[in-house]
């Protein structure tokens, strides 16, 4: 693989870029792989990447029914943070955030990680207490956060109306090394690196069945034929239930639509990411200048990638009140994605009733920020059979009542 650099770009410019090779190969499937990952989104590709990088497992295929990175990886609001309350969450999200710091260099692909800082506004006394609790927890978890007062909030984000008549800003949980990244680039960067390790990324290849023998998974049927494997990792946000059904088990998951939108681009006016959970909205400004906006999810099962307009309305209403200047910006694009909501709104990274069938799903509204950590933990789980990062996220917790509930600290698991 030719390395990317400013020098390479300059060299190619002189010959009108005729020398750039494919970012990833597009091979036909082999008969058998050591590991098959179903789903070439960020999480699936990251799992494959760390299987190769950390465990030397490179005879890997990543199957994708559409185009790689075409699901939720390319449909989210690109926020990266790890200021979670519960230990297992903080561990995996902070692992991810830490890996994001160096991901561009690791992958030799600029994923544009921008640690511009993330703040979660406290607009009720209850939220103040919740975020103070989170700040205490984060200090022990090795996550660098701070509870800041309203004046600091205003300094960091001058366009915010902190004295709204309805919910004045009382403070915020501030994570200075949280931020954003370019979502497509994360998928593309991992894909390029996987392909470079000799892994096969097979697009337009839908899994139609899970083959098993003696309680173990032995392969999959696909639209490109049957493919054998020793281990199977299913990482298909939004469609996990369907893949579980193929293996004969059910999941504590419901799939719902989550929506996001962007404004037309304007010159830079906001240097941080702001999440306002009391009024249900969050916003940041992309490098292109668009205000990137997200809000709440629908409450009913839906596979259409179209949500209901009233959620957009609620979110925009909240943000116009919080950031009055956006009233005269225009909504440019609006889209929806299908997210998996689990019984406790935390993800599942787990073995399953079918041996050698591993599942990574249920990221709900918070998947993008976790991609590197999730891939890291999942790779370890698949290679070694256990991983401290994924241990608490097992399927068994729903039987035992051992939930990982992030909503407790007034926060929501975006």
């Amino acid at each position, binding site marked *: 693989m030719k390395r990317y650099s400013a020098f390479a770009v300059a060299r190619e410019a002189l010959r009108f870029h005729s020398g750039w090779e494919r970012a990833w190969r597009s091979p036909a499937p082999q008969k058998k792989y050591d590991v098959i990952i179903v789903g070439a989104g960020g999480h699936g590709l990251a799992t494959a990447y760390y299987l190769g990088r950390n465990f030397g497992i490179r005879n890997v295929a990543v199957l994708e029914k559409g185009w790689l990175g075409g699901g939720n990886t390319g449909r989210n609001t690109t926020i990266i943070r790890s200021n979670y309350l519960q230990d297992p969450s903080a561990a995996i999200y902070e692992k991810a955030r830490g890996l994001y710091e160096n991901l561009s260099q690791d992958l030799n692909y600029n994923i544009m990680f921008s640690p511009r800082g993330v703040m979660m506004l406290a607009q009720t006394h209850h939220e103040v207490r919740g975020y103070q609790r989170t700040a*205490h927890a984060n200090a022990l978890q090795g996550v660098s956060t701070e509870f800041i007062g309203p004046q600091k909030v205003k300094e960091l984000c001058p366009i915010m109306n902190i004295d709204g008549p309805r919910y004045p800003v009382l403070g915020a949980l501030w994570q200075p090394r949280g931020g954003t990244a370019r979502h497509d680039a994360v998928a593309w960067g991992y894909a390029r690196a996987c392909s470079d390790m000799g892994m096969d990324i097979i697009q337009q290849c839908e899994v139609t069945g899970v083959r098993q023998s003696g309680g173990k998974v032995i392969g999959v049927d696909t639209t490109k034929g049957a493919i054998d494997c020793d281990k199977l990792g299913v990482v298909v946000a939004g469609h996990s239930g369907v893949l579980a059904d193929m293996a004969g088990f059910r999941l504590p998951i419901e799939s719902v639509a989550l929506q996001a939108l962007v404004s037309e681009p304007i010159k830079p006016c906001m240097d941080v990411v702001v999440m306002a959970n009391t009024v249900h909205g969050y916003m940041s400004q992309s490098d292109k200048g668009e205000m990137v906006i997200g809000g709440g999810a629908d409450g009913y099962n839906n596979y259409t990638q179209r949500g209901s307009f009233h959620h957009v309305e609620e979110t925009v209403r909240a943000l116009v009140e919080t950031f009055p200047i956006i009233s005269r910006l225009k909504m440019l694009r609006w889209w929806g994605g299908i997210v998996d909501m689990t019984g406790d709104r935390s993800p599942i990274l787990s073995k399953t009733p079918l041996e050698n069938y591993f599942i990574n799903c249920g990221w709900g509204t918070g998947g993008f920020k976790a991609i590197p950590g999730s891939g890291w933990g999942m790779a370890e789980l698949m290679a070694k059979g256990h991983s401290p990062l994924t241990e608490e996220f097992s399927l068994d917790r729903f039987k035992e009542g051992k939930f990982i509930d992030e909503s407790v600290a007034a926060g929501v698991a975006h």
Partner: protein
Amino acid sequence: MSTRLSAGGRLIDKSKQISFRFNGKHMTGYAGDSLASALLANDQMLVGRSFKYHRPRGVVASGSEEPNGLVNLGEGGQFEPNQRITTTELFDGLAATSQNHWPSLDFDVGVINNSLARFLPAGFYYKMFIHPRPFWKHVYEPIIRYSAGLGKAPKDTDDSIYEHLYSFYDFVVVGGGVAGLQAAKTAGDTGARVLLVEQASNWGGRAPVDGGEIAGEPVDNFVDQTLTALKKMKNVTLRTRWMAAGIYDHGYMIGYERINDHDPSDTKPRHRLWRIRAGRIITATGAIERPLSFAGNDIPGVILASALRDYVVNFGVSVGDRTVVVTNNDDAYRTAITLKNAGLEVPLIVDARPHGGGALADEARALGIRVETGKAIAKVHGAKRVQSVSICAQAGEGAVLEEVSCDCVAMSGGWSPVVHLWSHCGGKLLWDEHEIFFRPDVHKPPLDQDGTPFVYAAGAANGCFGLDELLQDAATQTGAATGSKKTPKLPNASPRAEAPIQAVWMMPQGAGIKLRSKAWLDFQNDVKVSDVQLAAQEGFESVEHAKRYTTLGMATDQGKLSNINGLATLAGALNADIPQVGTTTFRPPYTPISMGSIAGAARGEIFQPIRKTPMQSWHEEQGAYMEPVGQWRRPYCFPRAGESHDQAVIREINQTRNFLGLLDASTLGKILVSGPDAGKFMDMLYTNMMSTLKVGKCRYGLMCSENGFLSDDGVVARIDEQTFLCHTTTGGADRIHAHMEEWLQTEWWDWKVYTANLTEQYAQVAVVGPNARKVLEKLGGMDLSKEALGFMEWADGKIGEFDARVYRISFSGELSYEIAVPASQGLVFWNALLEAGEEFGVMPYGTEALHVMRAEKGFIMIGDETDGTVIPQDLGLHWAISKKKTDFLGKRAQERTHMTDPDRWQLVGLETADGSVLPDGAYAVGTGKNANGQLNTVGRVTSTYYSPTLKRGIAMGLVHNGPSRMGETIEFAKVDGSRVPAKIVDQVYYDKDGEKQNV
């Protein structure tokens, strides 16, 4: 130069001159002008700079598809960036500035010239700026951010108003052109409710500009007559300046009405967002012309042929004196003919088709216009303005045959039906090989809640051109939508009579890389033919990948001009058919809509409801410091002049403990549960045994979710044999009422129980403190002595003149009466208590004093000690969990292994050695780290306050094995890393035996 013609301009009123400013320069136009036409009339061809390379940009279109003409419009509270000049109607005093340049539009230091642009191809930023690591955030990203963006961020708060409207129609017809008018007429004739909308301010669409006849008369006459007929129909509503922004499931539709954008001095709402339920939607949204891809097609002066025609016919404006027309279809000949008839020069028509055009070509030739077939533009010359074009053979690689001097190039690459609305809700598209465009696939339409088609495309939007064909299609599609068998009688209309179009995706066909890297696809985002080809070369084969990699179609025009050309270029690069490569998903809105309109009227005072108690006005008059609790705002404390909130809280507590306090407890939920099975139901709802509660008595109860976690608490009063009154927390009233109804309606529907949420029927006041009884006795009425009304009893009666229900319950540990009176009497009752209580030292207190006093008593608070992960057993509330009952909500859940784990953290009191207040939310640190390197914890603080009663910090917390570790000291970590030792103690700090409350 561009200028105003002496004749023409069907939309402008030359008797009404309008003055406006552009970049500070005073200009004039006429009523009816768009900002674009007015700027062109003032020879302002250069209107902006492109996004990436900051190249000079001129007007290229005449409608909402315009990618270049974007300005900062207005000032102060009416400032708005990125306003499209082609859809901005001119008004007196309009002030606009151009965008994305520094220091000026004419001279922009940010411009990236041709040789440099080569170093910034599609996706260059993914390949660069990787090292050194901190440079991305601190150096590269800021530069990119400042050069990107378009308009300026507004500084002031929007001073316009917005509103919403719900509306219901059997049929909505989108588009006020010939097809839309005919569709509305056909639908209206059935008697159904019809809404006909047009995004522009005028009716008729393109046809009046394009010519042709209906019933032997000019199209304008048809438009006028049909409008007149529609206006007479009571069942038809007509709206202009109304854009169908999006179509959603189940016939939901968003309409964007721009009420006073064209006259901001008016006090009307600026925008109105219509939320429509439509039975059927007919999209007669017309078509959009495509540019052609040739080198230099982005130089100001290169314009769509149809747009040029619009400017001449509608506004009497010429873009240039000498216009070369370049085309792959017949329609562009209309522009040449129009120009010629307006007295303008057309030195040449370049027709890429070897055999040229049909009747229109003949007509052009007859006017003396030179036509060259099989030819192409090799290159446009000029910088900020077209100077000349080089002509070559379309079939070749661009060898120049001749150079033609000109100051305008009119291009036409064919037309694309506007299929956006069709696609929003799942309608599929077909590639039409013959016409070279995507058209709606009528066999795969959007489906409504009944699984039946609900969107119909008609006219040009359905791929029908030619007035006769288009009228027929409008009637046919509307007939299909209405299900009416009646075929309307349609007038004769001009047929299309055009020679076939020929696909031309690059001009010339064999253009080399140098030409391809100067042939623009997306004018705003600077995406060229070579960029899309590079994407394909690098494996970005899906249209979604290519779009995202190159940013094609992601600009504020949403790719209206670039999508199809980009797609075809990609297909060419992949050597695939266009339908194989597919098309991207069209999403609402059709054109960008203001955030203000989405938010609507709900801002400021009516942003969100604020619930108010009957005594709220008194609290506000006293200057109470309020805290939001759910939708309520409750007084946190009542600070006096010069007093901090902390000081006020201490004062309120001391006064209440020593004399008399009043709390507005009206927000507490009060739910009536009544019926023969009420006792059985209460036993399922609460962990306690409630069915045994005696009439006249009160009992504190706990409610759990079916998942076992503590969800609410409160005092239950038994009103009669069949009736209970359940108090809930402030936030719990609606939630718990819904919870009760859910179980009654969906699980135990044969149980005879009714509930009613009476929360707002009553004002409730807690009268608390040693003098509580005295003040009530002073008011007179019912007997409230210890004997008559014991602790945890209730009674109905009169207090003074007030009808009251009195509960003798205490959340503070003091002698306390909670008194409910009808809400309308609340404020009078409150004032009566204040007046009568004066001699007893009465003082209102807020929620913080309430919290501190309950903590001194060791009472738990829902939301403090509980957080959705806590079960009653964690809080030592075993006494409130019935052992006798075989079932209650949450019981099974509490039997799961993790719930019965002896290692669960349990509630205790916590005391610092120095009397300081423990930090809120602090965790107790254990030994070592877990497998993820996090410090192990053994407990956490759930409530922590300064207790004025004990004059020291007090706290409660959940601690591992807490209750069996009394007296032990554990360490809590502060956020700064330091540790605070605290002793584990009993959490009841004050009057453990309850002597004070039971007097």
